[in-house]
């Protein structure tokens, strides 16, 4: 299969995602510069990586949404192909309207960079099928604006459709207030669209995908994608 990793000015997790897809998972992988109108038909999964596209000016992800590549990514997603946005990539996908809701400033106003516990709420997706339902995993977060917000109606609809994929929990899988690092509604850490082919998540699975880094619980996400495509 083939991964594409989008590069905006200010992306800084692009090389990590490229490294995991290409060297750890052994898959064909290309960078895609945001100004290129690239033919995406050769790709199976597009990764919108973390970082600070356009310096987070205006709102995180908002300027990147108007880059030429985004029109191609929207039509790629509308054809049912896989798109995953990690951290700033999640912010870009919500700004672009591919995912519902918005990511606001963290409740504490702090930039938070640490390992957190997540519960895998839905394994019936191309991104999570290799996890066990209800599995609690450790994946790092590193963000200033990860406080998930949606209006009540939207929130109810994503819960009812099982679109919440990852939730911040304690080690027993309890979505408590204490386990919520940033104030996200319903402890939401990652959601997918209705069709289950677009995923956005604040935690960084690419930072914990090889044993040299002491944690491989993010690798399972990449394994799920490869299993789905092949």
């Amino acid at each position: 299969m083939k991964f594409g990793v989008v590069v905006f000015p200010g992306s800084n997790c692009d090389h990590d995602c490229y490294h995991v897809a290409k060297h750890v998972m052994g898959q064909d992988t290309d960078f895609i510069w945001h100004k290129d109108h690239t033919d995406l038909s050769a790709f199976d999964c597009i990764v919108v990586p973390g970082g600070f596209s356009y310096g987070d000016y205006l709102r995180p992800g908002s300027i990147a949404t108007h880059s030429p590549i985004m029109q191609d990514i929207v039509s790629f997603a509308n054809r049912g192909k896989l798109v995953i946005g990690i951290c700033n990539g999640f912010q870009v996908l919500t700004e672009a309207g591919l995912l519902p809701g918005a990511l606001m400033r963290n409740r504490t106003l702090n930039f938070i960079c640490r390992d957190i516990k997540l519960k895998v709420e839905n394994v019936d997706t191309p991104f999570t099928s290799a996890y066990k339902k209800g599995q609690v995993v450790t994946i790092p977060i590193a963000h200033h604006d990860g406080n998930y917000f949606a209006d009540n109606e939207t929130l109810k609809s994503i819960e009812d459709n099982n679109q919440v994929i990852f939730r911040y929990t304690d080690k027993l899988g309890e979505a408590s207030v204490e386990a919520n690092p940033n104030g996200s509604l319903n402890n939401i850490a990652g959601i997918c669209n209705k069709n289950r082919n677009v995923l956005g998540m604040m935690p960084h699975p690419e930072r914990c995908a090889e044993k040299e880094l002491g944690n491989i619980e993010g690798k399972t996400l990449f394994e799920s994608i490869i299993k789905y495509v092949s």
Partner: protein
Amino acid sequence: MKAKVYVTLKNGILDPQGKAVQHSLGSMDFEEVIDVRQGKVFELTLDDKMTKEEAEERVTQMAQQLLANTVMENFRVEIG
């Protein structure tokens, strides 16, 4: 022609930056402040090729499409 766009978080959404400013004002003996909502102001300079009404319509589109995220923010447009 000048236009201003005021963007603030919607009512009911916790504004942690506004709260921090409010607490700071309180600690400075401005205890009459019971709430602060922080926002952004955009000052736009437009060419003079359109009427005020047309400008208002165009700037409203700008706010909807870029300057505000209407999932979480309200905006108000002032022309002139």
